């Protein structure tokens, strides 16, 4: 079998490195090697959206990328949203609108909404519904999430 592979990447503005097995997913690398456990893993086959992060600016499923594929990439995870103790406006809007209960799906929703609002500021309700179609919430329901995203408007 192959030796461990050396990788480097920028996550939330900070440089990280590691030596990984080829089969390690990016999501597991973030959680288990970098201790960035804000990224959650639900289904591990690209259906639930909980592990959504930005890779080189685009929202993707981090369970469907290998850590080695992100060598040299610039990533943003949910930990990159808040400014110290100050919540990002999107996070504040989620709190204000009760857009989460258990919070498991929230990191994926936040990163999806971030990409959505960056590409399409002040989206209509149906555009938001379409945009979050790839993220599953099993307790809060989608109405407060949609309200929070619309209220935020831009990022």
């Amino acid at each position, binding site marked *: 079998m192959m030796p461990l592979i050396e990788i480097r990447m920028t996550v939330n503005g900070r440089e990280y490195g590691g030596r990984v097995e080829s089969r390690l997913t990016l999501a*597991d690398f973030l959680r288990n090697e970098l201790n960035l456990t804000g990224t959650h893993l639900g289904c591990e086959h690209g259906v639930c959206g909980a592990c959504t992060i930005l890779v080189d600016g685009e*929202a993707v499923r981090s369970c*469907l990328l290998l850590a080695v594929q992100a060598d040299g990439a610039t990533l943003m995870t949910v930990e990159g949203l808040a400014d110290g103790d100050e919540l990002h406006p999107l996070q504040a809007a989620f709190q204000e609108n009760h857009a989460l209960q258990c919070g498991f799906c929230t990191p994926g929703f936040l990163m999806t909404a971030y990409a959505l609002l960056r590409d399409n500021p002040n989206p209509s309700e149906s555009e938001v519904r379409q945009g979050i179609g790839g993220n599953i919430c099993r307790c809060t329901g989608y109405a407060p999430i949609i309200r929070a995203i619309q209220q935020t408007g831009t990022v």
Partner: protein
Amino acid sequence: MKPAKFDYYAPVARDEALGLLGQHGYDAKALAGGQSLMPMMNLRLARPAVVVDINRVAGLSGIDSGESGMTIGAMTRQRDLERSAEVRERFPLIAAAVPHIAHFQIRNRGTVGGSLAHSDPAAEIPALCLALDAEITAASSRGERTIAAGDFSLGLLTTALEPDELLTEVRLPWLDSDGESQWRWGFREVCRRDGDFALVGAIALLRLDGDNVCREARIAMFGVGDGPARIPGAEAALVGRAVDADARAEAAGLVSQAVDPGSDIHASAEYRKEVSGVMARRALEDAVSG
């Protein structure tokens, strides 16, 4: 779950990638966008001994308009098709269909070549290629060959690609409108939720003259068999006549008769057969009115 162990290569040159596929044959899998292969590996439905990641191979992506048609590199992301003004202008059918592929996070990674090579029977891109008479280029260390879209799908998740071959690009001939006739299109699919795999999908392409008389017809169905399928009987029923409501209903009936879908947890065979006719009829309506 997590993928089983594999040897990983990330070649940057095309020849290197082809060499690796040639060397490892059936043991190797090319990793494109990973939106089908990675789930299968995470679920251990696929356990390739060797993964050849082609994301860093130069020259495999891009959209180029030439004299006779548009060439789309295999590693072109579905999202790039969706955002391309060139695609929207020259192939509005593709621009209309691509947003139906899964969700935008998936389209950010998923590729044109990957979707073709994976060959899911409910996928949009193989059906579009079939409807648009695409030519698919497969390269190996032995050389290059062109495969007509109609010869590409060999059944469920099975294509004409040999284990040492890499799909490198797709060429779509222009739909030429002459002074007397014009190509029109319709695209319809049905699924329970946005982003799900299509239960049934229909693509209609009609070359209509000034009196709405059909000179050429192509109807491609997907989600209703082992791969996308043209319906020659329904196409023939439209050629040479005005595509009015009667003609559309007749063609739709022939589509419904011709398809032989299976049942699964998402829909019964009877439902798919019935809805095939409905989707085909609506795609034809869109083509005529659009």
